[in-house]
């Protein structure tokens, strides 16, 4: 029982990280209709920036998180303005390939600047252990789950209540009509990139705090794909929640079946899901009219 509880707990933790990245994917997909293959790399870059920040300016937990958020906004806006904005109106295939190119560039950039050896991102009080019944949990692990929940609520409120969120949904539903109604597509895209970079950045930072910081973190982006697809590319809340599901499922497979299967458990799961529902569990079915 205790083994099971521990597996579920650590599954929830890694699942929260997947969930954050999956939300980052679907925010961009919802607003612009493309999948950003550089999501994991963006998270990695922000994690490394935060590491540099914490080693020079001190390791206060809130300081590091605030920095990660600011870095996410700035990086997101920069990428959007320099790389994505000029591609507005190009075919989806080209835009997606640009993000793949961006991913490769960011990955090598991190390796060039920070090198390949792993670091530990130290944050005050992150390793303090709390006990619930029999399972010990670190504060950082609780924090990442809390952050996911806050992010889910915030995104829900943003899309339902705020004027800009409604504008974003309008662009996602019908770009042309939204533009005729006076919504600026470029602005929506900029906000989406900033928001998704913040989410990915938080995921990267928490991964670095809980596990370690190495140039292989970008793989988080790939590992979060199953969560995104399971939830549906255009379902932000659904993706976030299915992150938790994938995390737990992966850990249970790793604990009870084998560690090789664990690596691909998520992918096997989405193959099955896509076969039944090709648009994800919560995604909107696309109806094509000729």
């Amino acid at each position, binding site marked *: 029982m205790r083994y099971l509880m521990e597996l579920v707990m650590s599954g929830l933790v890694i699942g929260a990280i997947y969930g954050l990245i999956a939300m980052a994917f679907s925010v961009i997909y919802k607003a612009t209709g*493309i*999948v950003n293959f550089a999501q994991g790399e963006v998270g990695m870059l922000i994690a490394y920036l935060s590491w540099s920040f914490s080693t020079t300016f001190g390791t206060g937990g809130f300081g590091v998180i605030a920095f990660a958020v600011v870095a996410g906004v700035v990086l997101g806006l920069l990428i959007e303005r320099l*790389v994505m904005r*000029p*591609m507005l109106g*190009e075919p*989806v*295939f*080209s835009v*997606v*390939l*640009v993000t*793949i*190119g*961006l*991913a*490769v*560039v960011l*990955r*090598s*950039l991190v*390796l*060039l600047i920070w090198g390949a050896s792993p670091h530990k991102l130290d944050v005050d009080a992150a390793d303090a252990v709390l006990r619930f019944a029999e399972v010990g949990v670190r504060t950082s692990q609780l924090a990442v789950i809390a952050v996911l929940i806050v992010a889910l609520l915030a995104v829900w409120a943003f899309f339902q209540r705020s004027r800009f969120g409604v504008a974003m949904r309008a662009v996602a539903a019908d770009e042309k009509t939204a533009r005729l109604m006076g919504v600026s597509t470029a602005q929506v895209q900029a906000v989406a990139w900033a928001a998704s970079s913040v989410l990915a950045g938080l995921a990267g930072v928490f991964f670095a705090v809980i596990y370690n910081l190495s140039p292989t973190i970008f793989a988080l982006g*790939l590992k979060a*794909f*199953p969560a995104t*697809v399971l939830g549906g*590319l255009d379902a932000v809340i659904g993706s976030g929640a299915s992150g938790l599901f994938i995390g737990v499922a992966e850990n249970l497979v790793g604990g009870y079946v*084998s560690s*090789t*299967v664990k*690596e*691909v458990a998520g*992918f*096997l799961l*989405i*193959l099955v899901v*896509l*076969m039944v529902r*090709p*648009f994800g569990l919560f995604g909107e079915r*696309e109806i*094509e009219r*000729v």
Partner: protein
Amino acid sequence: MRSGYFKQDFDALVALTDSRVVKFWVAALLVALVGLPWLANAYLLSHMTVILFTLVAVLGLNVLTGFTGLISLGHVAFLMLGAYGYAIAVTRFGWHPLLAMGFAGAVPAIAGLVVGIPSLRLKGLYLAITTLAFSFIVSALVLAGGKFTGASRGIMVERPAIFGISLNDDKALYGFCLLLAVLTLLITLNIRRTRLGRAFVAIRDNDIAARAMGINLWRYKLVAFVISAFITGVGGALMAIYVNFVTVEGFPFLLSIEALAIIVVGGLGSVLGVVLGTVFIVSLPEIVSALFSTLGGGYAEVLTTSAHEIKSMLYGLAIIAFLRLDPRGLLGVWHDIRHTWVHWPLRY
């Protein structure tokens, strides 16, 4: 009296080329390529061999992504299956090398069928993600394969002798790769101008319209997957022979991206574009290292310590730059050059 240049039958219309100039230059290029082993040094020869087997593999991806418009992010899996298929057929089953080459194509082709069937329901990005998932599953399977696949240790592949000619000689290996590359080129060029190829392109341009015209999407998408996987698998076998060794680490995800980069940089959907893109992307690191070493000193040092990073960064930048500045790719540049050459000093 003829008052213009007309094509009077269907054969003339779909002929690969009707230009005497093009035929002459292609023949000249072929002669040069055949004569290369006796002229070039070992370094250039091995570089050319890399270009040739990369060309074979990427031509395979081109059938799927360039012709049919199905984005695959997992083509490295077919490459890996081809390489392992060859290695296993030769070392475990003791087959004849040529038979093993066929096996190296057949294994990915069957795998292509397996990925193809679930992919029929999927479109665009969902398909890309499924192929990505497939490539991870394949490497996990190879790692879990125990002694049969060599797991993480890999398999040694000895260079075979074909019809009494040992491929241990670099010249012979080059010749073998050249032969297969030319064959593959001819095959893909001919696919493009038959019913099959036109159906692929119709699916790429508008699948709903293609379907309305009586093209069986199901069948043609599957055929595209199978052909593409087969060709890429043969490329993988050549790669295994060249490297003498197959491991899972030898087939990183980056290779899928490199192949896509070649197709995009060359010019989407064109065979000539693939050739140009392959030569450009494979030579890019060499060109840059030559550039850096002429700059000398500190730059050259940076390059030797982090060659891999700079190489992959260049792929990324090349992809972004081409998509941003000239989406037609190198093919477009080539057309511009040809245009200027023919019409100079007039603009058109």
